[in-house]
């Protein structure tokens, strides 16, 4: 594998700043949908479907409170994924944005890390919007968060964001056509969304939990659900460690795949 050449974090930050400059132009327009989507799911699924659900919500009293942390994890996943899929592909292949960056002291490793930081920022924007709404519900008398563990949720969201940003970046480094992203979303992210304990315990299916254990969102959901209830036991610890380990491996692999792909 091509050697990686080390990251200049100041330049990675400069890449982040470029994205922020573009985002800031329309940020008031961009930020609102981040609040609508959670509300839609919480009301539709939580209150709508939840009306018929009475059992199996291990520990929490309402279906609404059961699905809320998982939905928050999924929103962090989505926030990170958009940035490193369509957006990054366009900058790579159509707009030639990275070609321009690379003609300065910026190296491909700085770009990959800058985009990663930006994707995590987007994941946090999505996830924190969700968290604000959950806190609002809780204060209004519909408990969805309990105890100080909720304060660690931003960290969990950042970890989920990092994980999915790296997975998306790896995919983007491999694809040659933008059409393949529909598969990434429908055959990868959507199944994760459905089968990662967000809406129902996945052990409802034979080997469900065993298979899900090997997939990333399952751990994201387990961690956010635990923290929302201020629970940090073995399960949560294992899930955090699982995500950190996969992130570490991808942090090694991803910059190298980009160097090999770009500098030919």
């Amino acid at each position, binding site marked *: 594998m091509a050697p990686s050449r080390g990251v200049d974090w100041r330049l990675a930050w400069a890449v982040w700043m470029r994205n922020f400059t573009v985002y800031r132009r329309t940020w008031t327009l961009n930020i609102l949908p981040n609040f609508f989507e959670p509300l839609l799911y919480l009301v539709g699924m939580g209150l709508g479907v939840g009306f018929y659900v009475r059992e199996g919500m291990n520990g929490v009293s309402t279906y609404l409170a059961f699905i809320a942390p998982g939905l928050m994890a999924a929103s962090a996943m989505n926030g990170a994924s958009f940035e490193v899929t369509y957006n990054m592909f366009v900058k790579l292949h159509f707009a030639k944005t990275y*070609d321009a*960056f*690379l003609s300065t*002291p910026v*190296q491909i490793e700085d770009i990959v890390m800058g985009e990663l930081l930006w994707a995590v920022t987007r994941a946090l924007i999505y996830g924190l919007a969700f968290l604000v709404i959950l806190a609002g519900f809780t204060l209004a008398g519909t408990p969805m968060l309990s105890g100080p563990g909720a304060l660690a949720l931003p960290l969990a969201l950042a970890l989920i964001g990092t994980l999915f940003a790296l997975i998306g970046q790896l995919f983007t480094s491999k694809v040659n056509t933008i059409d393949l992203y529909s598969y990434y979303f429908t055959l990868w992210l959507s199944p994760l969304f459905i089968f990662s304990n967000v809406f129902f315990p996945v052990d409802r299916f034979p080997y469900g939990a065993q298979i899900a254990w090997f997939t990333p969102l399952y751990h994201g959901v387990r961690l956010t659900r635990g923290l929302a209830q201020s629970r940090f036991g073995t399960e949560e610890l294992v899930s955090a460690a699982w995500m950190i380990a996969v992130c570490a491996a991808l942090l090694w692999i991803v910059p190298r795949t980009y160097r090999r792909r770009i500098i030919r």
Partner: protein
Amino acid sequence: MNENVIAARGLIKRYGTFTAVDGIDFDVHRGECFGFLGPNGAGKTSTMRMIYRAAAVDGGTLMILGWEAADGRHDRAIKARIGVVPQEDNLDQELSVRQNLEVFARFYKLPRPEAARRIDELLKLLRLEEKAHSRAEQLSGGLKRRTQIARGLLGTPEILVLDEPTTGLDPQARHDLWERLNALKRQQATLLLTTHYMDEAERLCDRLVVIDHGKIVAAGSPAELIARHVSPVVVEIELTDGAVPTEAEALKQHARRVEVLSDRLLLYADHGEQLIAQAAHLMPDRRALQRRTTLEDVFLRITGRRLEE
């Protein structure tokens, strides 16, 4: 004393099994405008990309500002000292001219006050002050190119690489850009320029190489190349459907060399007056004109093809 800022020996670029740059040698001196003249697909962009470290070197050596570039270990240092105006428009379309420059100022790690000062300076140099707040996507081709040049100069580079800077521009914008580039030349900037316009190469370049199919086929100053490869003047006679009229055969004896193109007969000579007079006598209804030879003729002489289609 000619200090070499770039020295290439046996430089090679391959894409799979295809060799785009096939073992070329050249030196670029500090303070000169050095040109790469060649048709589309000759390998100009590939060579530029190796120089500004966007592409790997697949063979040979490439010294840039005293560093060996081929192994990639000094890329950051080299890139900090080379400004690039790429062939395609890769400005950030959603950002203003000024914002585009601000983004790059961070890449060159300019402290903020210095960045602001430098950006003002460059907007002025390239006559972009009035467009500073226009979004890149709203600019004309010429203004975009000027913005790219300002961007390329932001890091105060020792070498400015311009890949086909006037391709796609209208004649007015081309002349305007030539004027900007001449202003840079007067400030002793080292310019590296590719073009497939021979008049551009002749006008701007102190020295140049003619490149075709990845190989250098001629090198020197425009005047040297013309003196070495072609006679001083050429007489052009209009042809219809590539057929050389029998009357023209007589003229051929008076020319040093003859080229038959689809639409013109070219008669190379030391003096044209006699040929013109004879042509007017033998073929009064055909247009004939005399002109001084150019790099276009040099290219035709060496490759047997025309440079611009």
